[in-house]
């Protein structure tokens, strides 16, 4: 967070923009359902904050090493749920809201941490740490324990308590494939915006979780920050550059190299050497513990993405460097030619902006469509979730995951709530999706994975979150909560199909386009009363889209307008998803864009699907 909030455009000192206009989120309560909190962290100082919002009806539950005076005007409430646990589950834990794991503290400080100067990880990523909504208040619900097990029963109790307590935003960085928190709808019905992490099972498709249509599902992205680490070979004048969190400034030469994977290397040969590893398919699987124990002096990983550098944080003062495959090959070639080759690794530096193409969707971020509900396009939005430096106990450490992306969005939602307290959770979600970015510097946003590609709506929904455009989205796709109840229908029934496809979401997904299909949507003018919008369609290849009417005229007395979108195939396609978009443009600042995903199906035979 020493850079992520700036990367989002939340400039702390700028006298305009969402952060300033929303008074830094003051008065808004963010509920965090996680592993608890470390109350002494500087990120949870309440200096400069006014009284606890009068709507707060929660409590500060005392417990082991957590007294009631550890709540303050920042941490306004804390509850914990241990009734389902056995004594064994509680080993190494605090029977209180105190965070033994550190995940909850990291997440809470990312959403609503106070401004903390001089934060870094051994000098890396130095700056001011802060949450997206630094004056928002925190309500802590500890439902996850130990290594991060969150009992569904406890999470439901936390949701129920949060509804009672009067939170405005609920942030949940947890989940399970093929499992949804339906009870979160009750929170939404009470006006609470619910934000979920989309999961870390990417880059494979159909892995997105927490995909209920009433929640905001968050994908992870990188930001324009890198930690270049120079590798010098003794037989070469040229340097190679990788990335690491290596911070030892004593330049040392190491013997190079043993080759293999962390699992297959003959560890007995690793002593005293740098080990050059082909990383597993996901760098998250790297477990750099065996090789240091065997006496290895360092590890160079060939990796296809650098979006989980904290996976090698445990290397400590031993150099663990991620390089691309080309660099790895060149090092291997040099080592093959010179068995006495020495390697020098220089401490990592921090690069910010300009030199790094960003954002990119993180390789680990779960991808759509939802295996349970392909009728609803998920995830909804992307935010920074790779290599985030945030509070861990009394210190600051890197973590990566959609867990880290989720609280960035929760914080931004809190800012929006402060500015527009009357906006429904559906309008807030609509504003997030329709104003999101799809490009930077005129280049499309990319998605890390195998291979890297241009990102599509199943990677990032509407795109990368753009807080300053959120302030004034122009139009919004609102949803009457009763329409969610209508989804509770028999899928064989045609009225059910209608309820699914016409649910007024800021996206359109048609998982089986067999014949011309019409979808209904309604937009509400939340901007200037007299406005005229024109449809701008980007059709998926081979699919024709007709919008009727194609011009929407709003006035003081006509704030809502409905329109039809008809999809038909121009060619006989079979199988994969195709992507497009529909935008309503007023010729000025408003470009209200929603993503479209269509899967044309020519044959009804499932074998062709």
């Amino acid at each position, binding site marked *: 967070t020493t850079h992520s909030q700036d990367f989002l455009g939340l400039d702390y000192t700028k006298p305009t923009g969402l952060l300033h206009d929303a008074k830094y989120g003051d008065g808004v309560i963010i509920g965090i359902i*996680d*592993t608890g909190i470390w109350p002494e962290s500087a990120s949870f100082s309440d200096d400069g904050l006014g009284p606890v919002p009068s709507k707060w009806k929660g409590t500060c539950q005392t417990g082991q090493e957590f007294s009631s005076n550890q709540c303050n005007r920042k941490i306004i409430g804390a509850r914990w*749920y241990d*009734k*389902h646990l056995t004594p064994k589950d509680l080993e190494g834990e605090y029977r209180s809201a105190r965070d033994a*794991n550190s*995940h909850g503290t990291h997440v809470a400080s990312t959403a609503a941490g106070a401004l903390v100067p001089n934060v870094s990880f051994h000098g890396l990523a130095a700056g001011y740490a802060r949450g997206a909504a630094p004056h928002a208040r925190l309500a802590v619900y500890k439902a*996850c324990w130990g290594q*991060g*097990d*969150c*009992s*569904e*029963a*406890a*999470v*439901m*109790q936390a*949701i*129920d*308590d949060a*509804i*009672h307590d009067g939170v405005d935003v609920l942030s949940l*960085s*947890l*989940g*399970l*494939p*093929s*499992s*949804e928190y*339906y*009870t979160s*709808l*009750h*929170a939404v*019905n*009470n006006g609470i915006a619910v934000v979920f*992490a*989309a*999961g*870390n099972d990417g880059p494979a498709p159909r892995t997105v979780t927490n995909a*209920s249509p009433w929640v905001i599902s968050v994908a992870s992205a990188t930001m324009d920050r890198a930690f270049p680490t120079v590798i010098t070979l003794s037989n070469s004048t040229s340097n190679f550059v990788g990335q690491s969190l290596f911070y030892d400034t004593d330049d040392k030469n190491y013997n190079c190299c043993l080759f293999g994977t962390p699992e297959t290397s003959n560890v007995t040969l690793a002593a005293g050497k740098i080990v050059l590893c082909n990383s597993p398919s996901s760098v998250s699987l790297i477990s750099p513990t065996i090789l240091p124990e065997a006496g290895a002096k360092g590890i160079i990983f060939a990796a296809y993405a650098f979006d989980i550098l904290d996976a090698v944080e445990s290397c400590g003062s031993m150099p663990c460097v991620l390089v691309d495959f080309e660099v790895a090959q060149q090092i291997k070639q040099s080592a093959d030619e010179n068995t006495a080759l020495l390697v020098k690794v220089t401490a990592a530096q921090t690069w910010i902006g300009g030199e790094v193409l960003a954002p990119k969707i993180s390789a680990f971020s779960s991808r759509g469509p939802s*295996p*349970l*509900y392909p009728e609803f396009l998920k995830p909804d939005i992307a935010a920074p979730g790779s290599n985030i430096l945030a509070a861990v106990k009394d210190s600051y450490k890197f973590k990566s*995951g*959609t*867990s880290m992306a*989720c609280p960035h969005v929760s914080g931004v939602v809190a800012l929006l709530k402060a500015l527009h307290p009357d906006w429904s959770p559906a309008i807030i979600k609509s504003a997030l999706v329709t104003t999101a970015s799809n490009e930077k510097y005129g280049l499309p946003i990319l998605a890390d994975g195998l291979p890297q590609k241009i990102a599509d709506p199943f990677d990032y929904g509407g795109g990368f979150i753009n807080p300053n455009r959120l302030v004034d989205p122009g139009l919004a796709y609102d949803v009457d909560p009763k329409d*969610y*109840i209508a*989804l*509770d*229908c028999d*899928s064989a029934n045609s009225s059910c199909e209608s309820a699914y496809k016409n649910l007024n979401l800021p996206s359109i997904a048609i998982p089986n386009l067999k014949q011309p299909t019409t979808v209904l949507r309604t937009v509400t003018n939340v901007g200037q009363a007299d406005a005229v919008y024109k449809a701008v369609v980007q059709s998926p290849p081979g699919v024709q889209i007709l919008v009727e009417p194609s011009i929407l005229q709003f006035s003081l007395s006509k704030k809502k307008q409905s329109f039809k979108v008809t999809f038909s195939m121009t060619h006989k396609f079979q199988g994969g998803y195709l992507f497009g978009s529909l935008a309503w443009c007023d010729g000025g600042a408003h470009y209200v864009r929603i993503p479209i995903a269509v899967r044309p199906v020519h044959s009804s035979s499932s074998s062709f699907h």
Partner: protein
Amino acid sequence: STTKKLYVVYLGDKQHEDPEQTTASHHDMLTTILGSKEEAHDSIIYSYKHGFSGFAAMLTESQAQDIAGSINGAAELTPTTRGVDLTTPACFTASISIHYAASYLSIKPSSVHRLH
């Protein structure tokens, strides 16, 4: 089997404005199934009473089946329990259609979710 595990019972919208009344209704329901107030009191772990109605309780499989039967008259069970042994592995749930459960009464084993 007499082995107990944690089940989540979801009873939809709360029927009472007073949360204590909602909790009392959960105890009544469990007392009917388990046969005694004491056993109901000992079994119940969490009571959902503010935003919605339901509870989490330590139950045997047959007690869970009895609760499934008692709420089956009001609405269908969720796919997790519909026609499926309550001990069915989680992988089964992915292969069957799921309904939105906003107004859907259900009982299912409490699953363990992970941090992301």
